[in-house]
């Protein structure tokens, strides 16, 4: 029984007291920075990386991984309580989680987010152990055309899902793709859209765009609308979900876990896509889809499970192929290299302690997070009592420190101010900001895969339609568009008829 032995071995590594301590430090720091808006796991992991030089490779990875998934627990807390996603993955949680908080149901929302994440984490651990190696082989078969089609599908789905005008959402994706171009072109080294500014030659930082649009833009909008979108200040009672809530959430959590695991093994798709996909599935399956966006607990449970499953499975391509599937994974690879370990397929056989120890630690870490988060929900709820006139300057301060700490660059602070104004204007004109962020993250990879595909096929665009997996993604994209456009067409017809 290979699986059983491997897991036992993994736990024996993860349960040593040093590794337990690293795990605890990781998830605690992760929760903290997840709750604090403006400092993401990316910045924190980068800052803390020097500390791990003296730690064993397993311990270092366990701690850094703990920050990563701990931040997702914490990030959903701020998403629910103050409508501020710490990361793209929490954007979806904002939609219904914040509405639940406004209705005085912040408690159940937080609890279901933690429980859903824990369940997904448990299943994710088992899945990695069971299917890790074979799944990695499937992902290995993907060529550039498959990746391009997959990203196209992901972006269209995300745009279509966003609340409001579909056309404007798609436009925001395109603006995001354009933002992703800024910096030097990987193939030719030509500077694009950098206007001779040195700081722009590496592109615009993810945190700059995210904090600018989501934190600063949102605060400006909040201060303009006197009584709307303020932090919920009602007393939050009944912290735990009712039986009815739990029953509603079983399906979404199971499906979210499945969706998250699937997207997790595909490099290039972030946890945001998994949670968006899960949200869309739940909305489609719901008996009454109109509840979504107005505080449907399924809209919290599914995406939260999905992004946690995704976060866990993201380690598969990183550990088995040496392929960073996200910015955080790129940092993890960096940490490995610093430790003198060559990332790649050999890691699993050469350093089984690393692979299985890390997996086991993630389950332990998830358990720690539930214990850390559920009894401490009261503490997070206390954050709600802070009046907004004090909360928003604090958010400004943490955002500024977070951005400045990435590159110690004042320029990025100015850029954030600019994105704050842009984000506010977009909101005023009815553009949803989330699709832009997704386009921005996927842009460079999409262009790279497009160019590689065309090179591969000798300049023939039919390559996207002749490869079976690629054409499946394309068909799915078209189907999504048709399904979403159809109701709009019907409505317009009715309008004309009236």
């Amino acid at each position, binding site marked *: 029984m290979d699986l059983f032995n491997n897991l036992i071995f993994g736990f024996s590594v993860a349960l040593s007291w040093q590794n337990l301590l690293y795990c605890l430090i990781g998830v605690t720091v992760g929760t903290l920075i997840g709750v604090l808006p403006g400092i993401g796991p990316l910045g924190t992991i980068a800052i803390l990386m020097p500390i791990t030089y003296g730690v064993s490779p397993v311990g270092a990875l366990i701690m850094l991984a703990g920050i990563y998934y701990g931040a997702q627990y914490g990030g959903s807390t701020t998403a629910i309580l103050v409508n501020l996603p710490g990361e793209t993955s929490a954007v979806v949680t904002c939609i219904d989680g914040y509405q639940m908080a406004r209705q005085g149901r912040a408690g159940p929302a937080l609890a279901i987010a933690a429980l859903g994440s824990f369940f997904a984490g448990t299943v994710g651990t088992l899945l990695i152990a069971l299917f890790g190696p074979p799944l990695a082989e499937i992902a290995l078969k993907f060529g550039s055309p498959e990746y391009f089609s997959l990203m196209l599908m992901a972006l269209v789905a995300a745009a279509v899902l966003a609340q409001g005008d579909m056309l404007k959402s798609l436009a925001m994706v395109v603006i995001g793709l354009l933002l992703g171009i800024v910096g030097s072109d990987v193939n030719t080294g030509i500077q*694009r*859209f950098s206007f001779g500014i040195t700081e722009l030659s590496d592109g615009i930082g993810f945190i700059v765009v995210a904090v600018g649009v989501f934190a600063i833009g949102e605060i400006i909008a909040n201060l*303009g609308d006197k009584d709307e979108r303020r932090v919920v200040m009602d007393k939050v009672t009944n912290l735990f979900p009712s039986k009815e809530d739990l029953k509603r959430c079983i399906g979404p959590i199971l499906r979210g876990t499945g969706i998250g695991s699937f997207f997790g093994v595909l490099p290039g798709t972030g946890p945001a896509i998994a949670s968006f996909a899960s949200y869309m599935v739940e909305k489609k399956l719901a008996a009454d889809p109109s509840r979504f966006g107005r505080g449907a607990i399924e809209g919290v449970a599914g995406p939260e499970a999905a992004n946690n499953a995704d976060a866990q499975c993201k380690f598969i391509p990183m550990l088995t192929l040496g392929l960073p599937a996200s910015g955080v994974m790129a940092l993890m690879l960096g940490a490995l290299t610093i430790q003198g370990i060559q990332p790649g397929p050999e890691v699993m056989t050469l350093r089984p302690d690393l692979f299985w120890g890390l997996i086991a630690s993630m389950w332990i870490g998830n358990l720690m997070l539930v214990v850390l988060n559920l009894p401490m929900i009261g503490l997070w709820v206390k954050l709600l009592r802070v009046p907004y*006139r004090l909360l928003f300057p604090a958010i*400004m301060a943490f955002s500024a420190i977070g951005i400045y700490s990435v590159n110690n660059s004042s320029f990025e602070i100015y850029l954030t101010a600019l994105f704050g104004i842009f984000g506010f204007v977009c909101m005023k*004109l009815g553009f949803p900001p989330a699709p832009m962020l997704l386009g921005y993250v996927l842009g460079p990879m999409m262009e790279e895969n497009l160019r590689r595909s065309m090179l591969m096929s000798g300049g023939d665009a039919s390559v996207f339609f002749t490869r079976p997996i690629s054409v499946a993604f394309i068909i799915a994209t078209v189907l999504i568009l048709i399904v979403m456009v159809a109701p709009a067409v019907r409505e317009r017809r009715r309008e004309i008829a009236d």
Partner: protein
Amino acid sequence: MKLTLANNKDVWAGLMLIAIGAGAIFVARNYPFGTALRMGPGFFPVVLGGLLIVFGLAVLAIGLRKGESMTGSWSLRALIILPLSLILFGLLMEYAGFVPAMLVLIVGSATASTEFRFLEVLLFAAGLTALSVAVFVWALGLPYPLIVGLD
């Protein structure tokens, strides 16, 4: 509110998209476009810029046909003060140090609220700055001088 061209949300939205799209194409005009086989660095930006113009025209057309008026205020006070405090933070981080930068950012941005109370904000800013110094500079070891020239 009566719908005029000046407060028509979709007209402005469409114009913004067209402007960004046209701007992108204009800036990218000198990047090699390449061929279908070997796409140059100009291909992606130009195609995206074109797409944006198409979207912009569609949104503009919708706006001209029916359109919606903009709602809510433009919160000019916050729109000016918040970016300005960030810029001050950036400048002070370079020339004055962490403590003055934090104090100015917190007090400055707090004035964007109509509920601004000077004494309360001052105390809050002092507390938050002290906490940030403890967490970020001392505990996490971010290499920022607290006050430039005072070490």
